[in-house]
């Protein structure tokens, strides 16, 4: 086998090196044929193919890394292998398209806010007890070396409250998003998969919820359930459900008509298995883009509700700080400025990342 390969290799190299001139017609045709069937031409050269192999061996991760580090320009003889790598290439180009300056800025903001939330006890100059309990050091003190950004009405350090407040905002936002997405995806799949009256019932009800202004509905929830942070989280989670469900429904309707769904049904799969094993993974990707926007909206809405005064009084939260500070706006503007700015910054980060993801995935921009 090995010798055979070597032979063919020698043959080909000889034909390549010598021009076609001065040979008989039959030989020329043979050589042209060898050129046309380029697969044979490349078979023996294993080293050039290691790069092109689909990563399914133990070394798959190494292959993948090598591919990522490889420059994008491709030699013309690889063109027939192009389809094999469509997936990897599209991933790489998505990554490249996402890296616009604005998106990088957004990612930086999000990393910064998460960093604040995770390492709050090390970063904050005062402990959580100091900024949440009433330690009176003088209300609305101006910025000074002890209190870098000044103090609030109850004499708590604003910088520490900003750093600890990122925990409250991010966890409440994430909780709302988690509730909204888990139920929204469930309702979306059920609605699109079964269709008929189930679809009509669910979607008409969600249309009704969506046409209401979100804040008024959230406030109604708070009126019914009582004033607390958990109820705000629950209200925003419930408000997210219809949007997610509608998005998921349209995504599932596309995935539903694929051939493998028919194959699964023919081979006797149950509805539940088809929905969550075959449709769900193929319909989930558009949801990830919307998650960024939803998260920004949820954080903004939660801050608005706590600003109104419908949150709890003894938690560390940015919107609540703005509410307290707004009573002394002209004498102590720093008590409003910093919490307001950091809410705006967080929402801006989520909006920018969402914009970047959407633009990168938009088929209109591929051309």
């Amino acid at each position, binding site marked *: 086998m090995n010798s055979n390969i070597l032979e063919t290799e020698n043959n080909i190299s000889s034909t390549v090196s010598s021009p076609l001139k001065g040979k008989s017609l039959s030989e020329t045709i043979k050589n042209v044929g060898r050129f046309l069937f380029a697969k044979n031409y490349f078979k023996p050269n294993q080293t050039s193919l290691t790069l092109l192999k689909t990563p399914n061996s133990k070394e798959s991760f190494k292959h993948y890394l090598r591919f990522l580090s490889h420059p994008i320009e491709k030699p013309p003889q690889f063109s027939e292998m192009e389809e094999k790598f469509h997936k990897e290439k599209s991933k790489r180009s998505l990554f490249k398209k996402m890296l616009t300056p604005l998106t990088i800025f957004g990612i930086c903001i999000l990393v910064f806010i998460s960093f604040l939330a995770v390492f709050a006890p090390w970063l904050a100059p005062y402990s959580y007890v100091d900024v949440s309990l009433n330690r009176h050091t003088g209300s609305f003190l101006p910025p000074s070396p002890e209190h870098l950004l000044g103090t609030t009405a109850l004499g708590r350090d604003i910088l520490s409250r900003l750093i600890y407040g990122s925990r409250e905002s991010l966890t409440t936002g994430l909780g709302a998003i988690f509730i909204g997405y888990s139920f929204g995806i469930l309702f979306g799949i059920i609605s699109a998969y079964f269709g008929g009256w189930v679809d009509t019932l669910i979607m008409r009800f969600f249309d009704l919820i969506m*046409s*209401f*202004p*979100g*804040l*008024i509905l959230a*406030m*109604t929830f*708070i*009126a*019914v359930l*009582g*004033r607390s942070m958990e109820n705000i989280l629950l209200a925003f989670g419930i408000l997210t459900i219809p949007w997610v469900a509608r998005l998921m429904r349209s995504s599932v309707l596309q995935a539903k008509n694929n051939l493998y769904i028919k194959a699964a049904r023919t081979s006797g799969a149950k509805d539940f298995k088809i929905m969550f094993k075959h449709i769900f993974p193929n319909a989930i990707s558009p949801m990830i883009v919307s998650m960024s926007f939803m998260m*920004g909206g949820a954080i*903004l809405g939660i*801050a*608005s509700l706590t*600003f*109104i*005064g*419908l949150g709890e009084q003894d938690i560390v939260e940015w*919107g609540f700080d*703005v509410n307290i500070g*707004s009573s002394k*706006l*002209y004498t102590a*503007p720093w008590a*409003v400025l910093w919490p*307001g*700015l950091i*809410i*705006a910054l967080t*929402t*801006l980060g989520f*909006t*920018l990342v969402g*914009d970047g993801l959407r633009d990168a995935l938009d088929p*209109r921009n591929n051309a």
Partner: protein
Amino acid sequence: MILYILKRILLTIPMIFFLILITWAIAQLMPGDPSSFFPVTTNPERIALFREKWHLDDPWYVQLKVYFGNLLQGDMGQSATVAPDWPVVDYLAIVFPRTLEIAIIPIIIIPIFGIRTGIMTVKHRNKWQDILVRGVAVLGMALPSFFLGLLLQFIFGYYITDITGGRFDLPVSGFKTAGFPDPEAVTNFRLLDSIIANDLNLFLDTAQHLVLPVTCQIIISFATITRQTRSSMLDVMQQDYIRTARAKGCPEKLVYDKHALKNALIPTLTVIIAGAFTLLAGTTIIEITFDIRGLGQALVKAIMFNDYWLIVGIVQVTGLIVIVGNLVADIVYTIVDPRIVYN
């Protein structure tokens, strides 16, 4: 088409019925019944009368019947704590015009402004104008409205008054200067009432108080329409008929205003109408920031002080606005886009 519009109008009647039913049901979920929301100091006789009036000791279907009966006679209950002993209808009649006053100017200005800037960004795609407008739109989406309102208050109430030596002093909160008399209530709109009362000072005072909330509202809501116009215009500009229009020698201004805009406007229209009605129903934050006693502030107060019938009444009015908004959107759609076939 006329048949469809008539059908659509008739369809709102069961929707309104459904809305009232749902708000009533949600109100039932609130802890306690309406009588338990009175302050502790209330005379027990008054509570007994109240219980008798709404049949609170009877089963729920009797209560619902009584509620509908009273509602059809224009009785939405009485406020308990926010405005004691006021009928909710009367309270809403005073409160709602305040909201309408700060909402109506943005509703008119934003679509004009937003569509023009949307077209401009497409004309100068990826130039500095485009980047500037997109930046402002993203900021408008990201800035919390209360923070923007407080910033405006601080700038206009502190710095600009300071710089101009008090000559330029824009009022930053409330809907009237303290000590100014109320005009005779004819329509409950302060602007209209002061015109009817023929009082220029009163009119100017009211108008000055509206400047900052309206500016805040415009900056916040401007983003959505501009972004929508931009994306749908970008879609339309790649169509064949735009190339044809350019090839036949159509001036660039007409290409944008006549050929492209008319087709790009259809998805934008939904955003405009829906936005206008949500703006009407959702000025809560701005009302609280600028201390305007409108519908949103009334709702917050009602939730704070546990005013049962007021909460129900305000949510119903909001729902009514939303239903009417959807109706208007559907009717405008049939007029603007005759291609849509209705069965």
